[in-house]
């Protein structure tokens, strides 16, 4: 669960705070677990909600839609596999807050745009737009990483 928190937090300390707050909720609300679905999924949802609440005051910019069909950035398929988990988390953390949260919710957790929009209090189209921008920025970062990796290999 600390990995989940790390993806949403700005720093390791913030992630530790989120983890602490999340587990306090888990232990104080254990009686509310309905045994529907996995326990891990229930804990994960609590962690995500805790993380979202931590940054809920920072409202995302309401962006106009239309970025859903941005041109794809060409990235080598091995670009991701060459990076460690912590490097990938670092890349996500370097995204603007809104992009990062939507990418975490939709791309990694697997929530729909409608669900993510409801959780974040934004429109579905905004969620789509944020995700597209997040992907673009990540691809740009991956491209740079790939170039560096290629250079290192060449040396």
């Amino acid at each position, binding site marked *: 669960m600390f990995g989940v928190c790390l993806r949403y937090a700005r720093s390791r300390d913030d992630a530790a705070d989120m*983890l*602490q707050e999340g587990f306090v909720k888990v*232990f104080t609300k254990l009686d509310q677990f309905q045994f529907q679905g996995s326990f891990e999924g229930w804990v994960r949802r609590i962690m995500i909600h805790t993380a979202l609440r931590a940054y809920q005051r920072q409202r995302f910019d309401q962006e106009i839609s239309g970025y859903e069909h941005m041109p794809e950035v060409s990235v080598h398929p091995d670009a*991701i596999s060459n990076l460690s988990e912590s490097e990938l988390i670092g890349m996500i953390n370097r995204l603007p807050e809104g992009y990062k949260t939507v990418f975490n919710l*939709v791309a990694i957790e697997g929530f729909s745009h409608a669900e993510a929009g409801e959780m974040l209090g934004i429109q579905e189209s905004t969620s789509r737009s944020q995700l597209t921008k997040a992907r673009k920025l990540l691809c740009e970062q991956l491209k740079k990483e790939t170039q560096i990796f290629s250079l290192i290999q060449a040396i």
Partner: protein
Amino acid sequence: MKNEEIDKAFRERLHDTQEQPPAFVWPAVESEIRERKRRKALIFWLMGGGLAVFALGGWYFRNAQPAPLVHAQEALVIYPESNQINISTTSTSNPTQSQSKNSESIVASTTPISSGRKHNLEKPYQSIESVNAAFTPAPAPETTVMYSKGMVDVLGANTLSTIQDQAIIPDGNTTTAQWPTSLGSIRSDLTILPQRTTFLGLEKDQIQFPAIDLPIIKKRKINKACYDFSKVPFAWLLDAYVGPSLSRKSLRAAPDDRPYLNQRLNTESQDWSFNAGVRASLVFNRHFLLRTGLHYDQAVETFEFIDPNFVKYNIVVSVSNGMQKIDTISIEYGANYLKTYNRLGWLDVPLQLGIELRRGHGGISINSGVSLNILFWKRGAVLAPDGNAAYFTPGSGTYDLYQKRVGLSALGSIQWFYHLSPRLRVFAEPYYRQILRSVSLPSHPVTQEYGIGGVRLGLTKIL
């Protein structure tokens, strides 16, 4: 890579990432859960206490609200000079009367009786004077009017309709109900018949009653076990008390100092302590109090710390022939377990305003006010920001953590008391005080605040 492929690649790598959280998280979780449970219990007891006080107050007021019923036996002695009022009791029930369990009949007659005979009314009378006020003297006809229980309630300020229903007027054609003239007037300090428009089927202005004279009026019976505050405009009370207390500590820190805050939380725990004091109270206007005195509150905390990198150097110096030389050098190292019982004491001058409600031998008082700290006393050790245990006892010189004095506190209490004798009471008084500002120095990364709750158990002497 397509969009979906990027998502999939990140999801596969990051969805189930296992990361080791920092070591302080789990103790901090445990500590916070414990703190929440304690807070929940405190709220539960406060609510329970509040409800109990509310219920007690409600019960008290419910019983105290009706004007004190004065037993006629205690309140009135009638010396009719020439005519007679003959009041007797019988045992008929009347469900319409709530205040009278035994119904009774009253016979009023103008037949002379011997002067000086005492007639004691057996039922509670609230408003004898009203009879005097409402009934105009009139010539006494040879009429006997028999009243059932309702008559008692006329005098007791109850409904008229009942009287109308139950009154028996032998000469039913008479339009004026009359009482013997020579009974004089009744004097009483009690309040009066309520708004009535009819009596025995007659309009108010048609009713004429003679004034009834009561030469002696004995007021309500005084409870000899209690001090009568109505006799004096001011009275002084002197309290001495002691009792258990428990402090509630609140620690706050900026996000950057959270790890240190969590370490503090893990190493400190609250314990039971005590409070004590003396207090003088001025009672004014019978029910109000102004209280001041000296109050001491103490907080006890346990500090437990294991220093994993403990190193201690022992150097023994011996003196021979006036020369000092090093005899032994030793080094102790390892993990050092340190446990101290920290004590923080506050000596205060409280100033409280209270209201006191008395009934029978007992009563309650509700007090609130402020408390000014004049001495803040502290002994013990704490985890310093550098990760080492440090003593904050003044004079030990290791770590300056607390303010010299803490200023004002908000203070509230509810006292229940019981009279052992007219001038001596015992009391139990739950109280809570919140120190309004931080007890720690502003330079310290953790802001430390205190609230203290406890019970004062003591004696009150009425001077």
